[in-house]
């Protein structure tokens, strides 16, 4: 069954739990500033989670000179094979969404690999803004979030 990583921007409250989960899941020693998912904070409790879209015809895969970016047939994600990466950063330049993240500490690109088919950020998202659902459910429009229960006024 094909699974889709679904981001419902309207449900995000910018709490940052996904960033923390990602930081710990990927051995980045809990550095939330260097995670593969980032929230653009637009206002009080308003955020846009920004994460790799795992494009079907991916620009990063096309420009990688050493086939270090490969489609994982099982998860559908584009995986980065560290042993093949030569740190040329063409993928960083080519990604039209800016989702290939250069990590100067580890000297490699960080990209979402859907945690091998079990995205760690999903169970930590308190509002269901991030879900991992069967492909047929992915197109269903998400329920709007009841923001009246939140602390901020949602502007």
């Amino acid at each position: 069954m094909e699974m889709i990583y679904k981001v419902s921007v309207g449900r995000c409250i910018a709490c940052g739990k996904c960033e923390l989960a990602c930081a710990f899941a990927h051995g980045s020693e809990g550095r939330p500033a260097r995670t593969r998912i980032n929230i653009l904070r637009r206002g009080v409790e308003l955020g846009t989670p920004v994460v790799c879209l795992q494009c079907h015809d991916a620009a990063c895969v096309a420009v990688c000179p050493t086939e270090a970016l490969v489609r994982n047939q099982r998860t559908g994600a584009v995986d980065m094979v560290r042993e093949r990466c030569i740190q040329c950063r063409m993928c960083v330049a080519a990604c039209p969404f800016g989702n290939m993240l250069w990590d100067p500490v580890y000297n490699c690109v960080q990209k979402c690999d859907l945690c091998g088919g079990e995205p760690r950020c999903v169970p930590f998202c308190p509002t269901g803004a991030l879900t991992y659902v069967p492909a047929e459910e992915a197109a269903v429009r998400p329920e709007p979030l009841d923001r009246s229960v939140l602390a901020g006024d949602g502007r």
Partner: protein
Amino acid sequence: MPNLTIDGVTVEVEEGAYILQAAQKAGVHIPTLCQFDGLEPWGGCRLCVVDLWRPGWDPDWFKMVTACNHPAEDGVKVFTSTPRVLETRRVVLDLLLARCPETALIRRLAAEHGLPATTFVRNPEPTDCILCALCTRVCDHIGVSAISSVNRGVGREIAPPFHQPPPDCIGCLACAEVCPTDCIPFTSSDRQRTIWGQDFEMLRCSQCGRAHITVAQADHWAARTGVPRSYYETCDVCKRLHHAEVFARLTAGG
């Protein structure tokens, strides 16, 4: 799928795999210098030599092959640390140590093989280049081929044509990045990048002005892959911000 034995460990590997991959699967370490997973095996450094025995051969008859580019055939037995294999590796490292007496990588590998110093005549002009050809191979692989090996024997070296700034080079630094001994010099700043004596203009982000790749890189990859040149004209940070703003707008209210 071929089934073979590496130092007594039986492994099954994918069709078309090489002995080196079978050894990795078996948990047996074979030293390499010119091997890089993202490129075709080359068999140039001769460090990964192993003894191979095929069914039907006399029990004391072996063939020495390079593990990186020898197919993992069904039924063969591979021995990675017989005395003659270790001696061959030691000679290879001894010669490399004579050529590159100051190179940390070679010194470490040589020391691991019991060679504190070379037994040959030490190169009076030490170099860090081990002639593994990873640089020329990666350059060929991306369709540029700006550098190659020139001359033969002791005079062999890696260089651009006629030792002139190579007109085909795109300044991507792939050669310098893949080099296991970091011996290809370059400079790179927001304004300009220089490698192999050639200067390159940097492509600046249309939004914030930060330079990330060279103009020649953008032209080359746009022509080679069909990824539109406009993708390169904005830096990753500005692209991410734009993408987030578009998403927020498109999903407003939902």
